[in-house]
């Protein structure tokens, strides 16, 4: 190990081999049987359960927890998958503290919700480790549907359509399927190549053909897809990244956080990944937190998240923020970048303190500088290359509750479409619901 956390610049190998293994191991491993039983025992089997209402895919949480409690975790898994075919990934990555667990009546009563996410993982991991698949395809209908994007929205849509007996062709620009499950989510939430394992498991339903490396607008046009299929679903996510639009953005070692994260997810060997000594992350969402925490896990000496508004407005949950700070990340709020400095490579970022006023955010003339040999931009992603003719609103494809776009025969869901938060679980819900509507309209 030639480098340490103190080595200046952006260099690989800051840590010992064991440290990498430890840092990127499964953050919250599967509960043991006894732990699961104790956790399940706390559920009250609520009427019209608030946790279920809070789940974007409406999983019957009291039922699946009771099934765990009565010693039938496989039945619990089926209850989960019936609503959410990516229940395995969602169990790992859902911000449960703002979804089901926030709504749990025991959160209100005791500040300690039933551990729904971990119980969900307990059940789904168990069933997914077994041979076979919990669902079977209906008889082939002879209909075919094109799904663009193999992220959670596209795959959830494809699975539901395949289950109904339709033939599904999935087109995705990237080399591997999974979307941000494969290229985005934090490494320690998706250990042991779970994203690919989940895709393989999901495809066991049959009737789905993946075409990786095929981009809509490049290798294939919407008109062709419409002509050759009975329906088209767009689940292309947000492929673009918002820029800072301040001087110095082009300096070396100033990067998009999502690219850094994608690289991490694809890295076989974490010690080969270069990371700065002093890292600054600009943004306030999950991407900012994931980039910052993982920079620390790679051995960065100081990592600072700088967010332009107040802490309460950060879209990363309180839980995520705590995770960041307990990983040694400093969070500075109410400061916006005004310039990046350096010759060739970045060395400093200059910020202005801000005031959040009714009229908007105002930069004050009080500024400060942070040393930075690496800067990650995490101020949001945007939709790029949306096919022409689709109505957009605030940068997203306009859809109705059933996922219909303004063009007949075309549905959309997930991050690229309006409605709901940009979360894995929301994408799954929208993909599934669009599939139901597609099924109803082509059958």
């Amino acid at each position, binding site marked *: 190990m030639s480098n340490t956390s103190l080595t200046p610049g952006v260099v690989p190998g800051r840590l010992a081999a064991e440290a990498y293994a430890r840092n990127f191991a499964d953050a919250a491993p599967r509960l043991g*049987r*006894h732990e699961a039983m104790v956790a399940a*025992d*706390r559920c009250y*089997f609520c*009427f019209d359960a608030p946790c279920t209402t809070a789940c974007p895919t409406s999983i019957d949480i*009291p*039922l699946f927890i*009771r*099934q765990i409690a*009565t*010693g*039938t975790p*496989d*039945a619990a898994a*089926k*209850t989960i998958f019936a609503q959410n075919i990516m229940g395995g990934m969602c169990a790992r990555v859902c911000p449960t503290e703002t979804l089901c667990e926030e709504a749990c009546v025991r959160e209100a009563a005791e500040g300690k919700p039933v551990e729904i996410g971990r119980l969900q993982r307990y059940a789904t991991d168990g069933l997914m480790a077994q041979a076979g698949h919990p669902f079977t395809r209906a008889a082939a209908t002879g209909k075919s549907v094109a799904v663009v994007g193999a992220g959670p929205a596209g795959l959830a849509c494809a699975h539901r359509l395949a289950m109904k007996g339709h033939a599904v062709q999935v087109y995705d620009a990237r080399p591997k399927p999974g979307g941000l499950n494969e290229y985005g989510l934090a490494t320690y939430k998706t250990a042991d190549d779970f994203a690919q394992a989940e895709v393989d498991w999901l495809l066991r339903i049959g009737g789905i053909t993946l075409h990786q490396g095929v981009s809509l607008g490049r290798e294939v046009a919407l008109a062709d897809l419409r002509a050759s299929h009975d329906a088209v679903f767009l689940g292309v996510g947000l492929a673009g990244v918002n820029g800072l639009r301040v001087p110095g953005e082009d300096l070396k070692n100033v990067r998009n956080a999502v690219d850094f994260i994608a690289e991490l997810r694809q890295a076989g060997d974490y010690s080969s990944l270069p990371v700065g000594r002093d890292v600054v992350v600009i943004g306030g969402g999950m991407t900012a937190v994931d980039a910052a925490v993982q920079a620390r896990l790679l051995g960065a000496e100081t990592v600072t998240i700088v967010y332009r508004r107040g802490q309460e407005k950060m879209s990363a949950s309180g839980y995520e923020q705590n995770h960041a700070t307990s990983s040694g990340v400093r969070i500075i709020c109410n400061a916006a970048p005004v310039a990046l400095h350096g010759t060739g490579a970045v060395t400093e970022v200059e910020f202005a303190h801000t005031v959040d006023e009714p009229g908007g955010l105002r930069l004050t003339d009080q500024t400060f500088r942070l040393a930075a040999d690496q800067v990650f931009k995490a101020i949001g992603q945007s939709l790029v290359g949306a096919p022409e003719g689709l109505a957009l609103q605030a940068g997203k494809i306009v859809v109705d509750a059933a996922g219909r776009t303004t063009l007949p025969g075309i549905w959309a869901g997930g991050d690229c479409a309006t409605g709901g938060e940009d979360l894995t679980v929301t994408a799954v819900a929208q993909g599934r619901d669009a599939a139901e509507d597609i099924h109803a309209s082509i059958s």
Partner: protein
Amino acid sequence: MANLASTFIGIKSPNPFWLASAPPTDKAYNVERAFEAGWGGVVWKTLGLDGPPVVNVSGPRYGAIWGADRRLLGLNNIELITDRPLQVNLDEIKAVKRKWRDRALVISLMVPCDEESWKGILARIEDTEADGVELNFGCPHGMAERGMGSAVGQVPEYIEMVTRWVKQHSRMPCIVKLTPNISDIRKPAEAAKRGGADAVSLINTINSITSVNLDDFAPEPMIDGKGTHGGYCGPAVKPIALNMVAEIARHPATRGLPISGIGGVSTWRDAAEFMALGAGNVQVCTAVMTYGFKIVSEMISGLSDYMDRKGFASVDDLVGRAVPNVTDWQFLNLNYVTKAQIDQTSCIKCGRCHIACEDTSHQAIAVSPERVFTVKDEDCVACNLCVDVCPVENCITMVPLAKGSVDPRTGRRVGDYGNWTTHPNNPSVAAE
């Protein structure tokens, strides 16, 4: 998904899960909600004579026992039979049965102990198209003082007599519901069979006082300063019910008499246990009163999974499967020797096994200065107490000694099957 369809004394239902005669089955509103949730059948809340309906207390009807996290473990009630007019019930029963042809609907009855009363009520229910009747000889409070319910159920001759009247005056299948408030459950079951019953169902509730108010000095539930004994039910009564079901299932005089198992059934597993001990189906009351009708989803998925795992084609493959293995103490193998064994990797060193054995059993668990707990085979009598008090499941297991090996406690070799009836210490053996 296994086939859960059930036929009990000719009555068909899509699954063997029925609701017991109680508040959950007191009116069409509840029963239809239950059917919508997936229950296979119901026994309608007990009907009485026409005329002014019974009157319930208007204070609390229930007492309860809870676990530490307020899980309801046992419920006690002082409710009577239906307090709604007979005709209203009959009209609703008829309408519900018409609408839900595939579900079982049995009517529970309790009228005074004379032939005219029974003949009369049977005539009244004739055209409801219900699938059968259940004779409530079990209610331990309120009705018993009026010579009905468990007052009948405690006298086998009355059971036989009333059952015979019912079979004489009605073509409906007849289930006799037994009270557990009796010393030998086989006697009323035999009487029911002699009287021509198609089946027995058990248990009804157990006489009980759940708690005493230590400020007002009265039993709970307290009605204006006084309390009375009520009927106990819920998870706490399951072991008592299981034994009574097994006793009837294996008793030569009642073997083969269909049984509907009741008492503390809350999960698929409880139901499967009752069925393995000979119950053709089960009835549930307290569990739905605690959690609502939706729990049947878990019972359906759980039993189905279990049957798939076991390769059972129908519920009949399960019914009675454990009955041949229920025996009397005297036939247990006294040459079967086991020793407790502690898995040190899962032991959390709480010491509960040690103190239980040390203070109250056979001083067979040693503790080292490093808090390592080990079983002394030479002292372990294999009572199983340590297993039951250990907080870690499967940490302590009972490991059988191989045949031919020496038991370090007795110095004797483990031999072939041998029971008390032939044991040298048995005085009646020595006498021969």
